[in-house]
């Protein structure tokens, strides 16, 4: 899909809108500035409102003043008598495609006006919407969008969308639709409470419907029951009789019922109550017997367990006595083992000490023998190392001599190479000098040629200036002549016209027979006067045409002279530029010649001496270079360098060998000294070791034997000690085992006794007599079973009495109940009524569920709005804030306020709105409390310009600014104007800006002129019968400005 190009307004037409009768304003189709200047009250603001109304069908300021949508009749020009007003806007895109927006409002003679006619707002939104923009907009809030990025109203509270007038500066929102967004959030919050109440009401309605259904069901069931009773046949017993029978049962079963004897006049309620009480008492007695039976059941195993525990306790006592005796024996044995171990440990320790001393003596003698052997071996190695070092020294000296000779040869070769490079360098310098000489000659020639050209150009410039002066003089003469001719023509024409009028009068009033002139009273022959008048008519016209012809010719001559003067001016500028260029070239050439003259080889040597000197120098240097080349070529450099390299390597190896031999010799020497030192030290410690080698051998044998004997004795002592320890440990293990067995027997005995005590306590607690045997349990169980069977019979009797009593009651109430239920509405058609109530329940159920879903959905929607607000803050407001602060820097002079931030609360109730805050002296303060009205105006403008750049939703990039600098000083007004003209030049905006200050209007035009911004000035001069009187001037061609890259 092709992208639609950007749009420019080209025409604005207003008819009978507000103060305007008729206005047609042509706008250049491109970036430009349109200036509306003039005193207050002449219609500047109305022009902005006309554009707003034309595009959106509303005027936001007037809507707010009216407290809603303004009556269209208020927009019609007062006193015009018209039945409609209209605004038309024409646009053209970059490729020339025309678009039009027309809006007409018809005002009927009677009744309220209808909707405006023409282009609908959705089409306007579609026309303006940019395809390229990433900021999609809908048509719902086109007015908000325009106020966000295009329209800056004069009234402060309308500068951006605000929440209320009081906070107009504190919290402004740059977001088209944010007001609606906040309204949705607020309404949703308010609706939540109402929805909760609605849900609760519907829940009550549902409960009510369910209750009605339940009550109805109960009544129907009761009615059926009564019918069943009526049909039932059976014994009917009166309450008094029932009471007597219950009394008998009470006596028979020994269960007293409170108040049974005190009843004198028996009622149905008394009888039912007595039955209920007796039944409760009877059932309680049954439950008590059941519990007792269960308890006895639980004690069924107790007699046998008790007998077993008693037998076990009695059997363990002899075992315990036997184990106690065994333990006493083993303790005595252990005491004797422990004493033996102590004695053997002392003997073993002594044997160990003897073995250590013998081993030390053996090791000492062994070391002395080894030292003697080391001395002999190291002395031999030292003699070998001495010989090797002497040989390496000789070889190295021989190699050094050869290496020195080769090094001298290589150095001689390198010296030749360096000399050759020096000669080459001299030769290059000499060649450069020759080139410089050539260039100096050529430059000098060029200088002379340019000098001649410069003279010619100066003459040419002078000539052109002379000619232009002559033409200017001639033009002045012609202008003067034209003025005199025009003056003459004016007087002639005046006279001629008067004459012509007279002649016409004469011609019209003089008849053929008249002889006296009515003008001069001269008498003529009959017919002569009339013919003279007619002739005069013919004479005047050619004379006037003649004058006009002369004037036309003079004007043409004047134009031709002006054109010639212009052409000569162009020639003069060109000649002047050529002369300047030529002078510049001359200067550069002269400078180059001076530079060349400063060359060291030719400085101070004029031609041809300089050339001869340098040429001779080059010949000499070339010969020297050739000689060196030959000498170097004769040397076999590869072989020379290889030999030098080989000798160097050999020398290094020999040097390394010598160092190694020297090191070995030193090491042997050191080793020998160490061995001698060790022998001396040992001799000092053990004087008897310093003997001959034979004596050392005998000492070594004796030490070895002593060490072996001591070792054997120590081993034997250790073995005896180990055996004694094993016997002791075995006795300890036996003692421990015996003790454990004894403890276990005691525990079992105590456990049996405790078990018997517990069983006896449980038996007695169950009210059972001792002894603890099975026969006691059996007899108790039997008596309980007999009582239960008897009470079961009593319960059956009681049920029969209740049934009889119920029947007695049914027969007495039957008539009354039948009457009551049959009077119930719908009982006759109770099936239909039941269905009807069921349907009502279903309906109430559905209504409740919908209300509940709505309430839950409101929470869900709140969460979704919250998420959108948070995300929107990040995506829309953060870039806006960055740009806003850049605009602040450019617009607000005072740097203390550059820290104003457009902040927003992520996720808060006002997350889609802005607060302008100032960080001043370390404290965070509302901008409203700090800034002046003028500064707040700058903040507002910065916010709008930032919004325009941040949200480029429209392909009509325009700013409509109604008196934006009304509160500003010169510095701040200048800053704004600088930004605006840059927006026109660099960002392609169309700017419509108004001011009531005439001096500022002139200043604006000068500022626009300074950078070549095309402008139209609509100067409001007063009010006429058709509305504002506007004088339009423009400067649309700005040739001095280059196209910005």
């Amino acid at each position, binding site marked *: 899909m092709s992208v639609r190009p950007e749009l420019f307004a080209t025409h604005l037409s207003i008819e009978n809108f507000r103060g305007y009768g008729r206005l047609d304003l042509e706008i250049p189709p491109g970036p430009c500035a349109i200036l509306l200047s003039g005193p207050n009250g002449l219609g500047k603001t109305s022009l902005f409102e006309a554009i707003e109304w034309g595009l959106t069908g509303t005027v936001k300021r007037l809507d707010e003043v009216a407290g809603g949508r303004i009556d269209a009749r208020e927009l019609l020009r007062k006193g015009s008598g018209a039945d409609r007003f209209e605004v038309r806007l024409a646009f053209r895109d970059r490729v020339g495609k025309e678009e039009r927006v027309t809006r007409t409002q018809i005002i009927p003679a009677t009744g309220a006006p209808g909707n405006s006619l023409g282009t609908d707002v959705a089409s306007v939104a579609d026309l303006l919407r940019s395809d390229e923009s990433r900021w*999609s*907009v*809908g048509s719902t*809030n086109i007015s908000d969008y325009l106020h966000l990025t295009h329209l800056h109203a004069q009234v402060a509270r309308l500068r951006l969308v605000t929440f209320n007038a009081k906070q107009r500066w504190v919290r402004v929102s740059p*977001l*088209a*639709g*944010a007001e*609606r*967004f906040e309204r*949705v959030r607020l*309404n*949703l919050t*308010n*609706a939540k*409470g*109402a*929805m909760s*109440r*609605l849900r609760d009401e519907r829940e009550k309605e549902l409960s009510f419907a369910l209750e009605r259904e339940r009550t109805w069901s109960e009544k129907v069931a009761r009615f059926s029951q009564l019918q069943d009773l009526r049909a039932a046949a059976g014994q009917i017993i009166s309450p008094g009789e029932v009471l007597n029978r219950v009394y008998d049962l009470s006596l028979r079963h020994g269960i007293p019922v409170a108040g049974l004897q005190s009843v004198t006049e028996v009622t149905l309620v008394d009888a039912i109550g007595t039955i209920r009480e007796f039944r409760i008492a009877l059932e309680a007695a049954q439950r008590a017997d059941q519990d007792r039976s269960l308890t006895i059941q639980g004690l069924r195993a107790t007699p046998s367990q008790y007998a077993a525990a008693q037998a076990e306790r009695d059997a363990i006592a002899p075992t315990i006595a036997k184990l106690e005796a065994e333990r006493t024996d083993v303790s005595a044995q252990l005491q004797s083992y422990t004493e033996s171990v102590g004695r053997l440990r002392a003997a073993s320790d002594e044997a160990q000490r003897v073995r250590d001393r013998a081993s030390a003596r053996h090791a000492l003698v062994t070391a002395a023998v080894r030292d003697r052997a080391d001395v002999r071996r190291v002395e031999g190695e030292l003699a070998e190392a001495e010989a090797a070092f002497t040989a390496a020294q000789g070889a190295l000296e021989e190699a050094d001599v050869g290496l020195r000779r080769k090094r001298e040869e290589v150095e001689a070769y390198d010296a030749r190479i360096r000399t050759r490079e020096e000669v080459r360098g001299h030769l290059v310098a000499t060649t450069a000098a020759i080139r410089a000489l050539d260039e100096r000659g050529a430059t000098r020639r060029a200088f002379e040629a340019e000098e001649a050209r410069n003279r010619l150009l100066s003459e040419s410039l002078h000539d052109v200036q002379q000619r232009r002066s002559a033409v200017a003089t001639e033009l002045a003469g012609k202008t003067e002549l034209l003025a005199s001719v025009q003056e003459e023509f004016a007087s002639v024409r005046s006279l001629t016209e008067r004459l012509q009028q007279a002649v016409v009068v004469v011609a019209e009033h003089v008849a053929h027979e008249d002889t006296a002139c009515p003008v001069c009273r001269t008498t003529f022959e009959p017919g002569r006067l009339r013919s003279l008048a007619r002739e005069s008519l013919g004479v005047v016209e050619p004379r006037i045409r003649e004058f006009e012809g002369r004037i036309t010719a003079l004007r043409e001559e004047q134009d031709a002279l002006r054109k010639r003067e212009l052409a000569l001016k162009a020639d003069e500028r060109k000649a002047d530029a050529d002369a300047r260029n030529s002078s510049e070239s001359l200067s550069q050439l002269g400078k180059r010649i001076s530079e060349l003259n400063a060359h060291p080889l030719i400085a101070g040597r004029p031609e041809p001496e300089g050339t001869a000197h340098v040429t001779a120098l080059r010949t000499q240097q070339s010969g020297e270079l050739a000689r060196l080349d030959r000498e170097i070529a004769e040397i076999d450099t590869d072989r020379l360098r290889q030999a030098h390299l080989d000798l160097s390597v050999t020398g290094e190896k020999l040097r390394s060998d010598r160092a190694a031999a020297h090191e070995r010799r030193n090491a042997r020497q050191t080793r020998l000294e160490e061995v001698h030192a060790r022998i001396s030290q040992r001799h000092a410690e053990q004087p008897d070791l310093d003997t001959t080698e034979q004596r050392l051998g005998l000492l070594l044998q004796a030490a070895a034997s002593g060490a072996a004997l001591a070792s054997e004795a120590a081993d034997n002592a250790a073995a005896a000690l180990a055996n004694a320890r094993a016997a002791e440990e075995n006795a300890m293990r036996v003692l421990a085992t015996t003790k454990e067995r004894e403890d276990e027997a005691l525990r079992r005995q105590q456990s049996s006794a405790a078990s018997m005590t517990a069983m006896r306590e449980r038996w007695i607690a169950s009210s059972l007599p001792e002894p603890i045997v099975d026969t006691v349990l059996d007899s108790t169980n039997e008596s309980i079973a007999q009582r239960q069977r008897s009470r079961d019979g009593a319960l059956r009797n009681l049920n029969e009495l209740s049934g009889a009593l119920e029947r007695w009651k049914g027969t007495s109430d039957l008539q009354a109940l039948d009457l009551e239920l049959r009077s119930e509405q719908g009982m006759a058609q109770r099936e239909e009524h039941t269905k009807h109530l069921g349907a009502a329940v279903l309906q109430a159920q559905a209504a409740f569920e*919908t209300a509940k*879903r*709505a309430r839950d*959905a409101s929470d*869900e*929607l709140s969460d*979704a709005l919250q998420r*959108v607000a948070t995300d*929107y803050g990040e*995506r*829309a407001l953060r*870039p*806006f804030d*960055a*740009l806003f602060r*850049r605009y602040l*820097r*450019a617009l607000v*002079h005072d740097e203390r306020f550059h820290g104003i931030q457009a902040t927003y609360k992520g996720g808060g109730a006002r997350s889609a709105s802005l607060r302008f805050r100032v960080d001043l002296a370390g404290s965070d303060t509302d901008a409203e409390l700090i800034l002046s009205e003028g500064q707040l105006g700058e903040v507002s403008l910065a916010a709008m310009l*930032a919004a325009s*750049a941040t949200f480029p939703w429209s392909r009509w990039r325009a700013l409509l600014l109604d008196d934006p600098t009304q509160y500003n000083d*010169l*510095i701040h007004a200048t*800053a704004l104007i*600088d*930004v605006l003209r*840059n*927006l026109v*030049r660099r960002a392609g905006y169309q700017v419509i800006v108004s001011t009531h200050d005439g001096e500022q209007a002139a200043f604006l035009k*000068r*500022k626009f*002129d*300074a*950078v*070549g911004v095309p402008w139209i000035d609509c100067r409001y001069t007063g009010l006429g019968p058709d509305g504002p009187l506007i004088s339009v001037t423009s400067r649309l061609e700005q040739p*001095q*400005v*280059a*196209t*910005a890259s």
Partner: protein
Amino acid sequence: MDDSLPDLAEALEQELRARAMLYGWTAVTNPQLVEAGNASLMTLLAALPHSTPPLPPRPPPRFRRAIELQPSSLNLLVCGLDDADFIHSYTSALWWTGQARVAIPPGKRSDLHLFLIAPTGTRDSPEWHGRRSEIETDERFCRKFVWLPSAAPEPAEIEVLLDRTFLAQPWDANSAQPTALDPLERLVSDEYKGDLLTREEARDWLARLGTIDAGGSPQLAEDLVAILERSS
């Protein structure tokens, strides 16, 4: 005079030239303005606003530059301020600016701008901040900008300075991420993913909630529930 003044002026001039290129202008030295100084005191006083006090004659600043941005009518003057004798250095600059202004043809005087360079290390000086504020609000002759360089001036400081001048270009909004301008439209179009409302129900709800005259909370709640009843 601060020894680093020529270097700072050179750096500023380079950045000015680069910015001017963006507008299609070429910066050339204007020797006529550098040497301006023949206007009489009376001529100069006539160029001042009526309320300003007379300016005593001063020699022009020793270091000064004048640049013309061609082919526009913009003239820029550059000179330094002295810490030791601040008043003298500023009045000298002002005197020279007045002379230069008189030398410019009357129709082109609206775009004369004076750049004043303070000594290095004054960026964080409260005293110099006060001086800067005083100078930049001075309406005599032309608009003025004061650069307070740090101890080791960086090109970014010049960027910040020029962002406050007629060469600012605060309209680049490339960092903005795309989204709908109307957050509600976004919500209805692609953001609402709730379990309890269908997208159509959500749209109807938002339309009802967005009406200016909600008609009271009970009525609003009734209407919202009615939307769900109709849809089901």
